[in-house]
């Protein structure tokens, strides 16, 4: 199903929940809708499903304007954040609901539900009621129920929000595989960027009701178009005075421009460990945080504080220790743009082309 959204806006009693959002989604893509809490993600999804009507703008599904089409006729499956399973129906009846409503015959319903029970690994749970299921199983029922009437578009509002971290990871891998098997166009909301990056073919970043950027996870990561995206994606630190950083003294900036540095742009170590000592500045280790697979360092460089990663295999550093800090690159951001700047001092005396 091809989706096109043009200039959608929604206002709740003077609060602009969605403002002038336009995008288009190709058939079969899995889209991650990412943004901070209250950014308008759910509202956008509800508008697509027809559960909310936009104040302005048009929605086209397969080229057909659907603004006035009832949710019942849109052919969209919706998985709600709290699943919204029918409490008084067992798993079978929950999944069968969309088919029973359409007065399909018994055998056909049975066949389709069986198919979905197998697909979602819920075989054997048909007779259970929602309260007799774990969070992950409920999630699957909600998913199977939405899929049963063969929708052309699947919308998922924070499908994993109520599930613990480990199961969540399993479920999202499962979901991605499943969606690619069925080949259904899907949009899922999340405010967990790892989840979006891992699962989505394409991401939509939404903030304060506005669409900030649309693109593949890689392009969003490497080429953020706005200051918000540059700061939101990755574990970014904001630097107020970029020109005070070694290597960036001559960078041309308008007054008051900030820079954003991600930990992976920063190399920290004893002097002999750094590849381009001449491009490095001196800093002090303020704190060291254990992050499981690596260490995160909080470094003071002049007036700025930056974050950096360090492998557990490397020689340990101590808090208070003086270290060399090499900043490979940073994003210079202004109100509506983000530009990447490489450290100009980082010139390899013997360039090797790989």
């Amino acid at each position, binding site marked *: 199903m091809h989706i096109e959204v043009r200039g959608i806006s929604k206002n709740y009693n003077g609060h602009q929940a969605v403002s002038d959002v336009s995008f288009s989604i190709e058939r079969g893509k899995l889209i991650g809708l990412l943004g901070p809490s209250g950014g308008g993600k759910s509202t956008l999804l509800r508008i697509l499903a027809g559960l909310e009507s936009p104040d302005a703008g048009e929605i086209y599904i397969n080229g057909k304007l659907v603004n006035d089409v009832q949710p019942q006729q849109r052919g969209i499956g919706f998985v*709600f954040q*709290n699943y919204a399973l*029918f409490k008084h129906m067992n798993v079978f009846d929950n999944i069968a609901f969309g088919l029973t409503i359409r007065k399909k015959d018994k055998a056909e319903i049975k066949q389709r539900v069986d198919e979905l029970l197998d697909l979602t690994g819920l075989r054997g749970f048909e007779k259970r009621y929602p*309260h007799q299921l774990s969070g992950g199983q409920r999630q699957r029922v909600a998913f199977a129920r939405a899929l049963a009437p063969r929708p052309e578009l699947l919308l998922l509002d924070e499908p994993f929000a109520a599930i613990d971290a480990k199961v969540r990871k399993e479920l999202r891998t499962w979901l991605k595989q499943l969606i690619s098997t069925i080949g259904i166009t899907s949009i899922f909301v999340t405010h967990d960027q790892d989840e979006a990056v891992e699962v989505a073919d394409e991401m939509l970043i939404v903030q304060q009701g506005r669409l900030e950027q649309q693109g593949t996870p890689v392009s969003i990561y490497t080429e953020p178009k706005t200051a918000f995206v540059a700061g939101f994606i990755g574990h970014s630190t904001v630097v107020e005075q970029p020109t005070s950083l070694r290597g960036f003294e001559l960078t041309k900036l308008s007054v008051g421009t900030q820079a954003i540095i991600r930990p992976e742009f920063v190399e920290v170590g004893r002097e002999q460990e750094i590849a381009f000592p001449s491009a490095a500045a001196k800093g002090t280790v303020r704190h060291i945080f254990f992050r499981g697979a690596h260490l995160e360092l909080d470094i003071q460089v002049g007036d700025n504080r930056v974050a950096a990663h360090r492998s557990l295999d490397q020689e340990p550093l101590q808090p208070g220790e003086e270290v060399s800090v090499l900043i490979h690159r940073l994003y210079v951001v202004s109100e509506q743009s983000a530009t990447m700047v490489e450290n100009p001092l980082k010139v390899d005396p013997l360039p090797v082309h790989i």
Partner: protein
Amino acid sequence: MAGAITAHLSEKASKRPKHITESPIIRVVLIGIALLFLGLIVLLPLASIFVEAFKKGFEVYVASVTDPDAISALKLTLMTVLIAVPLNTVFGIAAAWAISKFQFRGKNVLITLIDLPFAVSPVISGLIFVLLFGAQGMFGPWLAEHDIKIIFALPGIVLATTFVTFPFIARELIPLMQAQGVQEEEAAASLGAKGWQIFWRVTLPNVKWGLLYGIILCNARAVGEFGAVSVVSGHIRGETNTLPLHIEILYNEYQFSASFAVASLLVLLALVTLIVKSLVEWKSAQQQAEE
């Protein structure tokens, strides 16, 4: 199930730590007072009904209960209940639905109006209908012209009973439906269900125990209603006397055994209602524990 507050008197006491619990003596005294009060005010009168009913022997009891006037009173009462309770069920569901699912002008007025029958004395409730439909009432002349009898006839009794008992079901359902929210209904809509299907398959099954409980309360009150019905009935023996009215008449005529015998019928109806109510409570508590 926020609305089921009335439906669930949990037998479990809230756990109280020792330092805020009263001493054993005070506990015994409190429990004693409660039981004594219950015995004096509820059990003793109830028992006395049966004692009085059988005072003159079993024959007299059977005779009073099978007296044509008693039978006709019982029939009228059941007839009234059979019309008033379904009417109130439909009204209660409609009102609860409107109030909990839609925003509209005059919603607060509607909520206040639903409570009105609880607030005014039953006698006034009866008088309202006399003033409207009685011979001297607003519509009286018109009704007389068309030969329609409302006051001192079944329609009046049904109207008065319906009026007095209409808050029960709506009151029971409103908080339930409000607590339910719209999520399941939205899910149903996105799965293709239309308004009516959503109502039958999702909304109603979710409130069925609360609804049943409301119906039972409504039924209990409809069977026993005296004040309002007394005003509109006209006390025509064998025609417009409901059970409570019939009991009063017998009593006023010094036929004590007969009046208590008929009263025992009413008590039996009440007991059946109580048993059904307990069953519903038990079922709904089970349901709730599962959620």
